[in-house]
């Protein structure tokens, strides 16, 4: 009975991850706006072209009816005339008013098939004076357009298809936190009771956690290359992550240096407690109080904007559970290995 239950959760984690990979990599991305040209506008009649990814305009051909482009300056809406729709993008013409509440304009494109597309800070009007948009330029937003997109992932301008990395990168760090937490508790218990079992647990936890920490660094680095343009940037969150991984490598080095000294359990437990406190400070406290590019920190859009999307949630939560369970399985394997080695040595 215990054996079956044991194999059920282990294979369950694998099946869950298989589901995550299948859906995570084969769900299409919603269309979205990528850029606006020209991005600097003068106080005259201007024509802008909004380019899109995922071709929300393709099926319509040259038919412009049903499409609406509205620009937003602060909380006021500006009307435009759609002049042409092509597979590459949509063109809109409008008079730039002399007065705007904000020089930055956000673009909304309302389409019959793909719903509402949005591009923040699409274009700028350098010479506009601060003031309200005159009544004759104003627009009202159509509210009866509902997208019929089916199951798809939300579009984020810089992230685009790489949003699938959310299913690897974030759960891997969660798994590391989880297993390092086990190690922390085991080390505290080790200090209290001085029993070798707790030391074995702590060692297994740190070793497994390091694997997931390295995976988290790798996936994070790939993501940084795509969204920020560099493999590594100097950012509080990234520095903290690197230091954490180095710190825990120090734990293994310390153990190796002590060899079969019988104080190894106690000393490495002390080090592990210290390392976990530093992990919490470095990854959860410091990045929140300093400027950071990393999502979820310092006023950046966190995962809230992704999480709100049900399609992503349906894959993200299983990914968290799947990676967590896989990590725990690895931890139990290492723990049993430690126990066996100890049993063979003391026999």
């Amino acid at each position, binding site marked *: 009975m215990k054996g079956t239950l044991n194999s059920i959760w282990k294979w369950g984690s694998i099946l869950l991850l298989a589901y995550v990979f299948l859906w995570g990599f084969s769900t299409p991305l919603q269309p979205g706006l990528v850029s606006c040209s020209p991005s600097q506008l003068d106080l005259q009649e201007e024509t802008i072209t909004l380019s899109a990814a995922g071709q929300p305009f393709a099926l319509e051909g040259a038919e412009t009816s049903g499409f609406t482009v509205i620009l937003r300056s602060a909380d006021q809406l500006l009307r435009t005339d759609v002049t042409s729709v092509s597979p590459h993008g949509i063109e809109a013409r409008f008079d730039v008013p002399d007065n705007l509440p904000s020089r930055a304009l956000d673009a909304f494109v309302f389409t019959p098939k793909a719903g509402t597309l949005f591009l923040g800070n699409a274009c700028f009007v350098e010479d506009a004076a601060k003031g309200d948009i005159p009544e004759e330029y104003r627009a009202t937003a159509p509210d009866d357009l509902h997208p019929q997109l089916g199951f798809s992932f939300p579009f984020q301008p810089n992230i685009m298809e790489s949003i699938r990395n959310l299913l690897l990168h974030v759960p891997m760090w969660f798994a590391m936190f989880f297993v390092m937490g086990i190690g922390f508790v085991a080390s505290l218990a080790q200090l209290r009771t001085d029993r070798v079992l707790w030391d074995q647990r702590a060692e297994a936890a740190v070793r497994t956690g390091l694997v997931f920490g390295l995976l988290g660094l790798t996936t994070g680095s790939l993501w940084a290359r795509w969204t920020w343009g560099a493999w590594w940037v100097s950012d509080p969150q990234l*520095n*903290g992550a690197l230091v954490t991984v180095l710190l825990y490598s120090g734990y293994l*080095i310390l153990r190796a240096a002590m060899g079969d000294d019988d104080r190894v359990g106690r000393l490495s437990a002390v080090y592990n407690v*210290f390392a976990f*406190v530093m992990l919490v400070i470095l990854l959860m406290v410091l990045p929140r109080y300093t400027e950071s590019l990393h999502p979820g920190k310092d006023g950046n859009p966190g995962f809230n904007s992704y999480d709100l999307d049900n399609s992503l949630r349906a894959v993200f939560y299983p990914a968290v559970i799947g990676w967590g369970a896989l990590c725990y399985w690895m931890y139990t394997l290492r723990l049993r290995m430690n126990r066996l080695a100890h049993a063979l040595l003391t026999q």
Partner: protein
Amino acid sequence: MATFNDTIRTAGTIALLEWRLEWRQGHQLAAVGLFAIASVYVAFQAADHHTDSAAWTAMLWLVHLFSGFTAIGRLFDRERSDIRRYLQWTTDPLGLMLGKLFHAVLTTTALTALVLGAFVLFLGWPQGLDLPGKPGLLMLGAWLGGLSMTTTLVFVSAVASQVRDGSGALGAVLGLPLLLPQLILATRLTRGALTDEPWTMLVEYPLFLGALGAGTSAIACILFPYIWRA
């Protein structure tokens, strides 16, 4: 169980003992000073009068970092020998740790003054600067950065001193990654103080450095008894 007063008295005694031993065995103190001055002189020769504020900051902290290592890395060396066995049965570990930390604070203060003084004497200020924008903040940053560095090092060398062979290299291996956050904050603060960035941009860094120093000291005090009685 030692009372609070006992602990404080032990801390005072240990700090005084450390200080007296430092002066009596003058060569160790002199070795740290010599290391610091020689490193500054190497930096001075390498820079050849052309340093911008980034390079200046980098060299200052490299010198400060390794001087700190030489000064603090051997703090628990005495406890390896027979003295350890004596102290182990007679001394309250918390008091011992507090004494060592207090000693580290004094050493760091002296070391910061020495390194910063020698640095300015030899290298002057970065190119294009007659004086740093915020001299007081520069000194405060160097001191706080040094403090949060050395308090961490006290803990690391306490751990490393328990390992039978090869503590010097082990201390460096365990210590360097732990010092990265402090160094990142400290270099950022130093650069800002040199180039006169506005207070609002810089005010968080001394706070973080102070908090990190206090935090690592507190954890070291809590955990040290477990190492000591092992």
